[in-house]
């Protein structure tokens, strides 16, 4: 399990809604405004050519007409103004949970249990009992193994190392913060901003915090930092949603985003992204000349980054995947008081 501590409600909310805006907290009286907004998830159950039940994440239960198969999902999404649609054959969800429960070995690892769920979902997708729109990941993507997940974990955060994200307000004071510490025995600890305030004098004040100060504190108090990121909340919010190649690389080069330390996997990812960005720019500037070489160049870029990036391990680029989802997602509430 992950042990989480030192977050107040506000800093936790800011951190989570950065990557999951749909999870944003809302007051009871805001539900109507939410219902009228675009986006959200439409979840429906179908049987034969009929849609039995449908729930919209913004509007609750909705009544829909006939089930026109997976090809009709895009139109349904458009009609209901939803960003995502999941359609499940009647009874398939219970069946899915039952299959999952029957396969789980209580002595097996947590990762294995979740991979079994992934396998059960894939079976339902192949059996046309479960349809997802839009298809964010290719259907040919292989199911990751425990070894792959372990390699990803070791790449992102090896044992006895820490990583942190410090996001600031426009005036430079700390907005939210999280440090993940992986111990020698593989347990995880997620620390919030309250531990910074007590550890680093003046941490809450404008301009008093730096990536190197946070790194030193982590090294002394917990574990040496493997990587750290410090930038303004708004900039990271924008970069996560930017579909543009090289956006991260440019911000890092301009010093707007500080990555310190920068481990090889981040350097490789940023380098690949920068090359892709430069290639895109050159393609626009030179007209069709680059087009002849583009498959070769793309292949070379992929080979350059293949040795040590998450993309090479997982088979997809997780930042691009998150970006695709975030661009389709509605945004979290703008209001933010320190008492939140």
């Amino acid at each position, binding site marked *: *399990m*992950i042990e*989480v*501590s*030192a*977050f*107040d*409600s*506000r800093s*936790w*909310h800011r951190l*989570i*809604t950065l990557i999951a805006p749909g*999870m*944003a*907290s*809302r*007051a*009871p*009286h805001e*539900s*109507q405004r*939410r219902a009228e907004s675009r986006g959200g998830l439409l979840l429906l159950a179908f049987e034969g050519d009929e849609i039995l039940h449908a729930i919209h994440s913004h509007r609750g239960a909705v009544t829909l007409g006939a089930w026109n198969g997976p090809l009709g999902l895009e139109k349904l999404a458009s009609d209901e103004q939803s960003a995502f649609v999941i359609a499940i054959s009647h009874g398939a969800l*219970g069946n899915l*949970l*039952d*299959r*999952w*429960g*029957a*396969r*789980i070995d*209580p002595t097996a690892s*947590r990762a294995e*249990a*979740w991979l079994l769920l992934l396998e059960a979902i894939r079976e339902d997708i192949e059996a046309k009992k479960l349809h997802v729109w839009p298809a964010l990941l290719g259907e040919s993507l292989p199911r990751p193994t425990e070894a792959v997940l372990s390699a990803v974990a070791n790449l992102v955060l090896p044992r006895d190392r820490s990583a942190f994200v410090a996001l600031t307000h426009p005036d430079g004071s700390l907005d939210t913060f999280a440090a993940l510490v992986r111990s020698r025995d593989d347990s995880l600890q997620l620390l919030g901003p*309250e531990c910074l305030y007590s550890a680093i004098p003046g941490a809450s004040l404008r301009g008093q915090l730096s990536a190197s100060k946070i790194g030193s504190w982590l090294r002394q108090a917990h574990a040496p930092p493997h990587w750290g990121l410090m930038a303004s909340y708004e900039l990271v919010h924008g970069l996560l949603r930017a579909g543009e190649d090289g956006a991260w690389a440019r911000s890092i080069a301009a010093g707007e985003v500080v990555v310190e330390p920068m481990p090889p996997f981040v350097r490789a990812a940023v380098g690949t992204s920068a090359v892709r960005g430069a290639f895109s720019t050159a393609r626009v500037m030179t007209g069709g000349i680059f087009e002849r070489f583009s498959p070769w160049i793309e292949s070379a870029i992929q080979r350059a980054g293949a040795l040590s990036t998450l993309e090479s391990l997982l088979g997809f680029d997780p930042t691009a995947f998150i970006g695709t989802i975030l661009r389709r997602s509605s945004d979290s509430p703008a209001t933010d*008081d*320190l*008492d*939140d």
Partner: protein
Amino acid sequence: MVHLSSIAPERWEPALLALAALGFDSVDIPLIWAEHALQTAELDFDSPRLSLKAMASAARAAKLPVRLRLGPRPVQHLEARGLPSWIVKDEGCLARNVRRGAMIEPQGLAIYPHPSLFSQQYRACVSAWIRGASLAIRQAFRPDELLAVVVGDGTTPFMRGDWISQDHRAPESERGAPEAKTLGGYLVDLATTARSVLGSEYSVELSTTSESDSSVFAALGETFSLHYCSPFSSAGARALWSSVHASTARAKLGAHVDVQCGSPVWGRPLRNRDAVETARCVLAAGAQSITVTMACAGAGWIGGLLDEHGVVRSACKRWHDLFGDVENVLPANRPEIAHPGARLEGLGFAPLARGWLARYDLLAHPEEAALASDSLVRSTEGYPLLQRAVGSGVLVQNDTDRVMQVSDSEGHWRAPREPLEPGKFCILQAK
């Protein structure tokens, strides 16, 4: 609600004193079965972090009466919701799905099996826990220090609302009357066990969910005070109002509603401003009292009024303001309730002015059946007695034969011009 065993014992008293200073008038303490019976069924109520006597002493010092929640699964954020690991590993205690596999409940990255209410083994283990805990409570708390002992699981399972009916544990291997194999029968079993040990000096209450079978809980509501977990704030004002109103109508001896402050690690995060608005809405809908869960962060809970060391966070200001709002409206004809404070014990009124109701979009649709079977907001038109008493204005009523309050069209509380029928109406006025 403060999960005292999650903070250092030397911080218990300062934490409870801080809550009392904020305006809380009692404290709910969940006793977690998994903590008191870590390895085996043998119960520990004496270790420093688990000492009931030390808990009683801290509450006594803060002058806060106590409610103790025994569950067996009293909270949602702990591993297996507080069940000991030796229970969730025991095949004889677990529910079975149609494929004879485990009925599982994901909690973040972890996965836990559901216990089976059809399993006599599980029911016997739960009874032993309730009996042992009740005995220790009797030794640690005087009856006047304890508001109630609460039994029952107050939170809804994450994925399967109706997990009891989907439990396929073979009934032929179990004995017992069919009606005992329901949630209602299970709760009555728990309460009977607790009462048999605690005796009549101590009060026993039930904790459940508002979504549970209403006919069962209407019957239970005749005998017990009921605790409900309020729907999440994003469900909207109408859903909250409707749920709480249905709960209060069912609980003849009182409905207490749990309002979340903060969130479990893997749950939807909740800002303090939204938590307080939810509390306002729940009080308006007629909850007899609210319990703020979890007041103290730690052990898988994020946010909270107090941090992991029991120190007050700045967000408490919003709650303090709410208590201030509530205290500004005192019942004119119920002098016995001098200081309702945060808990509103026995008060049962709605401290909402018309402006607030309009904000919740409740004034525009008083006739909607979704709100309740009896309308909640009416004009005094058609109520000559009330009209004479308060003039034209807006009447907010919790229940047709219980409690009412009146505000004028500007949202100000009005004193009645003449006494109303005693025992039928309770008119509230500005202090």
